[in-house]
Structures are given as C-alpha cells and as structure tokens.
C-alpha cells in the first residue's frame, strides 16, 4: 500500500504516507502530488485508501448520526442544542409527525438524529427520533473513540450492556448516557468507557474491559475513578 508507512504505525502531522494521490483517505491531505497525514494517529488501510485514525479530534457532524445534546436556548419554533465543540444543533420545536410536541427546557438532555448539515448549522430531528433522557449518568469521551466503543457490529457495546446491566445511549458526538439499576453499575460502566477511550489502540481490549468491570462490581466499595 505504501512505501513509507505500515498499517498501525503511529504518524504525526506532515508525515509522508505515499506518492499516489488517489490513495488519500481520511485525515490526510495532498500536497505536491504526495499524500501526508494531517493529524497524530494510527495508519489504517481500507478500501484501497490510506487513512489515519486520529488519537483525538473534534466532532464532525454527519447526516444520520445519533447524538446526545444539551438544550441551551429556546427560540420561537426552534431549540438550540449544544453538541460540544463548535457544533450547535438546531431543532424545530414543533413537528408534523409527532402527535404531541415534546416540551423541552434549557438543561434538558436529548437523544436524536442529525437530519442534515447545512451552512447555517446542524439540523436535528425534533420528531420521531427525539427522546428526552430523564435520568442517568452522563459521560463524555473524545468522538473519535465512539466507533471503538460500539465495536464491530456493536460487539463492545453489547459486552458493556451484558456485564454492567445498564442501558446506554451513545452519541456520535462523544456524549454517552448510562442508565443502570444502581450507581455502582453505572460507575462501573463509566469507568469501563474511560478505559476504552484510553486503550482504544491496543489489542485484547474486550478481555481487559470485562476484567475491569468485574473487578469493580465484585469489590466491596466503589472504585475511585
């Protein structure tokens, strides 16, 4: 794929990846006919392209993303929802499809989908997808780690559900709501999520996550996270 880097190698901004512009994947850029990394991250080959998976990064909204946001302002006909970083979501407060409109207040936590990303802002679905999260533990991790948290075909998230007995709402923007039978389980889940964030680039993560959760749940008191 490349004469200069191998898969899973850690690269830094400005590092040369290859000589073929058509192989430029995500988080790379083309300059003088060559492809370079734009971020600090790990090289990944997929679909005949060289991508860099960043170690950290801001949320880049995309259509159909499920997100969790916090209502920060109420305007006539519109809610302003904070999704973190520079992304403010806009959501119509009245919807044709919904029989009763959901009355939201500043400080409410919502789970919904990105309808489309326009020039004026990110538009969120205020209709059927919209759920208000009434209780639970809210955790934030870097958005680039969310795919790892979900896992291949949801495997990591299912592991978390099984081991902690909690319900999860996962936002692509990095916010996660954990609703569990009690706070000990919620804490165990939050601690496991933090572990996934820190060790996302290492192998054997699933086993370590299971062991970590069991250790917390079996201990007498809650572990200091």
């Amino acid at each position, binding site marked *: 794929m490349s004469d200069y880097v191998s898969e899973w190698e850690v690269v830094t901004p400005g590092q040369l990846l290859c000589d073929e512009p058509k192989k430029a994947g995500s988080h790379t850029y083309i300059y003088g006919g060559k492809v370079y990394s734009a971020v600090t991250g790990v090289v990944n080959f997929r679909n005949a392209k060289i991508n860099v998976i960043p170690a950290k990064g801001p949320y880049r909204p995309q259509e159909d993303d499920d997100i969790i946001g916090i209502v920060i302002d109420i305007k006539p006909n519109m809610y302003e929802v904070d999704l973190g970083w520079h992304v403010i979501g806009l959501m119509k407060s009245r919807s044709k499809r919904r029989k009763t409109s959901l009355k939201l207040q500043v*400080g409410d936590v919502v789970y919904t989908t990105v309808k489309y990303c326009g020039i004026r802002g990110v538009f969120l679905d205020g209709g059927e997808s919209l759920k208000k999260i009434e209780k639970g533990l809210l*955790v934030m991790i870097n958005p680039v780690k969310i795919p790892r948290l979900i896992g291949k075909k949801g495997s990591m998230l299912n592991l978390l559900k099984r081991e902690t007995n909690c319900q999860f709402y996962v936002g692509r923007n990095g916010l996660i709501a954990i609703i569990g039978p009690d706070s000990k389980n919620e804490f165990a889940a939050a601690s496991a999520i933090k572990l996934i964030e820190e060790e996302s680039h290492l192998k054997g993560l699933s086993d370590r996550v299971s062991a970590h959760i069991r250790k917390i749940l079996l201990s007498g008191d809650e572990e200091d996270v």
Partner: protein
Amino acid sequence: MYRIGGKPYPTKILHDKLYELILHEKRLDGRSPYESRQITLQTNVIEKADGSAQVSIGGTKIIAGIKAEVGSPYPDTPNQANMTVNAELLPLASRSFEPGPPDERAIELARVVDRCIRESKAIDLEKLVYIPGQKVAVLYIDIYVLDYDGNYFDPSVLAAVAALATAKIKKFEVTNGILKLVEGEYINIPMRRLPVSVTLGLFMDKIIVDPTAIEESALDTSLIVGWSTEDEIAAIQKNTPGRLPFNILEEAINISREVSIRYRKKLIENIGWSPELMS
C-alpha cells in the same frame, strides 16, 4: 476522572444524579462528602522567582510565585513591609476563563488569598522594614490557575503560603542611612503562621468538601473558610449566589476545621518547616 458535559451550565439529570449520590454519602468521583482530593505540592519550581510553589488538588493546578522588591511603605503603615496578591484565571485552565484583565472572580481570588495571609499575620511584616518610614520590602504574590477542576481557593492559599515559606529573598543592610544589597546572601521571609483555606459546597442540606467543577455547576452555594491556626478563623467568604441556611453554619465551620488541620499537615510535610521550629 471522566469529563461530563464540559459547559458551565448544569444539566437537570446531573443535578438529580449528584443529589441521589450524596444521599448515599457518595460523590461522582467516589469520594465521601467530607473527603478532599489528593494534593500534590512542590516548591521552588520557578528558579527566577524568589519563591514558588505548584499545588494540584485533583485536576486543579495552581502555580504561585513570590517576587520581593524594595519600595516605600504605605503612609498608614510606615513600619511594615508591603504585601500584594495578584491572581489570574488563565484561559488555559478552563473553557469559562477568557483572556484579558482579571475579572471579578480573579480579583476575588486574589483578595481572599490576601485576607487569609494578611489577617492571620502569617508574615512578620515588621521584620522586613529596612529603613523605618522610608524603605521596606515589597512582596508580590502572584497566583496563576493553570488547570481548573473546581476549587481554586484552597490550592491557591496553599501555593502562596508554601512559596512564601520556602522563598529566599535578597539580603539588605543599612550603613550610614544608605540601603545596600549584600551580594550573594539571602534571607527567609519571616513567617509566624501557616494559614490554609477550606472550600465547602452546599447541596440542598448536605455539605461537601472540595467541590469539582461539575459539582460547582450544580451546587446551591459555597463557602470558603480561612484558618490561621487550628483554632482561629482568619477569613470567610461566601463566594457564590444562593442561600446559606443559618443553621448549617456551625456544622460547616466544624467540618472545615477538620479539613484545615489535614491541609496544614500536608503543607508542613512538604515544606519541611513549621512556625514552632522558629520559636
């Protein structure tokens, strides 16, 4: 420690979750209500300063530096050295700190630290007078908040006091009424006491010690108590809006006293010195 939200306004579910936990004597980071976070303290971190200290309490990190100069005393205190405290909430430390001149929070921080040190008569300012009425030491205590996860008051007082206690300032002597620098010789800043402050948060009817930024965003109100010694209060500041029930004050003062003793012990451990040694 995991981050939640990241914005200054609290979410409703956060407020509910915090109270639910406190009813079980637990907090978000696993602490019990009267437990403070781990403190690390290092002195002499900035060699160019006459004294300096870096203090971390959980995720809050403060650096304090001391600079001593020579100047004229204030007209109403001709036989005392001058002391002035300046604090900055650096924009590095938090999303809610903007670059620019100190805002009301930074000024409040500086003035509360000043009161803790000045009112407890921690520094023997009379001993730093060179020519009475004319030349005295001018002590600048500058505090920078580098990283903010709640409670910048307590580590600021600790850092300022640690920096003062371990500072080495230029030695001067007076010959024929003229002030001269004694090259290569330094003196300690004469300290009588080691004040510390304790920040308490009030959540409905529950008191917590050393709130984190998340807790601060959901608290009803907070209170800082400065202790000059184990038994003497030197400063008090209610530093947030909100109701402070009259009946809770005594309990709050008692809790803060216990914590202040622990803080002072930690301070003495690190600077390897205490006023008892001086007398």
